[in-house]
């Protein structure tokens, strides 16, 4: 140990408006590096959605009729937005598990003992998860194009769709942050993720037209589900069949799906960002 270690403290940069962004970016890079260190994790996280695309397209494809869209690829065009949304909803579980792991390993304590902004660690985590899921989305989209899914309504609407989808993923990630900071172990974080995300995505129009759900109350739940709004918005923006062809009237949230989806995502962010930052401040291992 040289006496240099004991020299006066290194001046610590003071906070500015850009400090939060800087800190969050450092944490993001740290989380992304983990993906490059464990490429198998990235591979597995994209294998599952690919399997979903293939299984649904080829196994259920013939069995689930989509009104107003006949032909071999009709169900696939209907299906892909659903699979995108479902897969990206699981961003929440990714975030939960990542944070629970950091908490368990004492890294959150380390971060909390540093003079960094309270939201930087969470922002860094959600941003890294978001980027990972962007990658997964690209893989899924390519896979979808191969099995016959198409975007039919031009570039602008296509981009708007992807924006809505990734905003939804980001919102889900912040729900996951609250869950991850509330449980004690990675296993619990994982299990809890499955317990709420599966019903959330299945009680929707993601895989079957919501019109076919019964009893009626189930249909109502599905109609108001943020997942349904997002899926419907994507089908609408991308010109994919939505299963409402020939229906007398669309339910209100489905008719205004784009705005409803946007509203849900913004609402979730507005509630869960402050909630998770508060949890982070007082979290104890």
């Amino acid at each position: 140990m040289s006496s240099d270690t004991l020299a006066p403290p290194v001046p610590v940069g003071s906070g500015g408006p850009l400090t939060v962004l800087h800190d969050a970016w450092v944490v993001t890079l740290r989380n992304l590096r983990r993906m490059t260190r464990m490429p198998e994790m990235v591979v597995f996280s994209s294998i599952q959605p690919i399997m979903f695309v293939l299984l649904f397209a080829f196994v259920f494809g013939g069995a689930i009729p989509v009104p107003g869209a006949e032909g071999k690829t009709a169900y696939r065009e209907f299906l892909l937005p659903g699979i995108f949304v479902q897969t990206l909803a699981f961003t929440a579980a990714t975030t939960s598990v990542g944070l629970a792991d950091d908490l368990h390993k004492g890294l959150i304590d380390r971060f909390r003992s540093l003079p960094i902004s309270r939201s930087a660690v969470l922002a860094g985590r959600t941003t890294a998860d978001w980027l990972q899921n962007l990658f997964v989305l690209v893989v899924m989209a390519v896979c979808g194009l191969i099995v016959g899914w198409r975007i039919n309504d031009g570039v602008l609407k296509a981009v708007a769709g992807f924006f809505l989808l990734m905003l939804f993923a980001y919102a889900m990630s912040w729900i996951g942050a609250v869950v991850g900071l509330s449980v004690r172990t990675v296993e619990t974080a994982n299990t809890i993720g499955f317990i709420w995300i599966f019903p959330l995505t299945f009680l929707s129009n993601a895989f079957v037209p919501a019109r076919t759900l019964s009893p009626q109350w189930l249909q109502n739940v599905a109609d108001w589900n943020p997942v349904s709004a997002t899926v419907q918005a994507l089908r609408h923006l991308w010109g994919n069949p939505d299963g409402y062809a020939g229906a007398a009237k669309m339910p209100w949230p489905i008719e205004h799906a784009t705005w409803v989806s946007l509203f849900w995502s913004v609402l979730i962010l507005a509630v869960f960002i402050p909630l998770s930052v508060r949890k982070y401040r007082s979290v104890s291992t």
Partner: protein
Amino acid sequence: MAAIEAEGLVKIYGGNKKAKEVRALDGVDLAVPEGTILGLLGPNGAGKTTAVRVLTTLLRPDAGRASVLGLDVVRKPTQVRRLIGLSGQYAAVDENLTGRENLVMVGRLYHMGKEASAKRAAELLEEFTLTDAADRPSKTYSGGMRRRLDLAAALVVKPPVIFLDEPTTGLDPRTRIAMWDVIAGLVKGGTTLLLTTQYLEEADRLADSIAVVDHGKVIARGTADELKAQIGGERLQIVVSDRTRLSEAAELLGRMGTGEARVQDQNREILVPVSGGAQLLVSAIRELDAVGIAIDDVALRRPTLDDVFLQLTGRAVEGEPEPGAEPEAEMEPQEAAR
């Protein structure tokens, strides 16, 4: 003004219907003068980690106040964080990052800038003899290496006040002694250090003053010498062959010791605080021999935390089973295998 001050700290856990309330801290007062080392000595569950977490702004106390270099830990947490380094009870290193990346990340989070962070990381890796392993993911590190990396991370900005929570628990003896040298080196230049430990020997070796904690309370404090004077120096430990002569031997040895002899019937063991070292050991054996009491085993050993507790509270350590004992224990063979 002391560098670290605490007054009447209270922290209560639980207390709802399911869990019984635990007073992890029950009115703790501490004062660590600048440039000195305080050893917080206590068994598992005594409240050491809780105290460290309060002092490092990670946990809000339920009552009392604490400050670091005059800054209140509850009201000025960010300023406090600029001045402290923390190495927690379990090494908090990112396993997926290399040792170097871990340190650079911490430097950048202190806003030291890319180059300065890299330079400082290299310096620390060198000082902690981690240079060879610097560019390996830290999940491949042994327990001792992780611990050193974690300590290095606490020193990135050369903080004037450092907290180390059980820095050597779970390390094998060789690594422990190396760690002691590292820690002793820290304070030479005026750093203030609060260190928790379960080992009296460690506190004795490193700390300028010691506070003994039990059930969230400080039950004794003073320099190592003062404490030792209170509890007596070494212990003479003798196992007699014949159980029927146990009390006779105890009486004889009691006269030679500085305190009361304790008898453990089932092991036929007698423990007496003594002063006088090896010479006394020889005369004890002689006197026992003179009256014809045969012995199976004899040892002169330094007092341990158990002895402190026996002396101070009249009962043995009743600490909780160590929650992290298993993972730490797993690391040891790795360290030994290197």
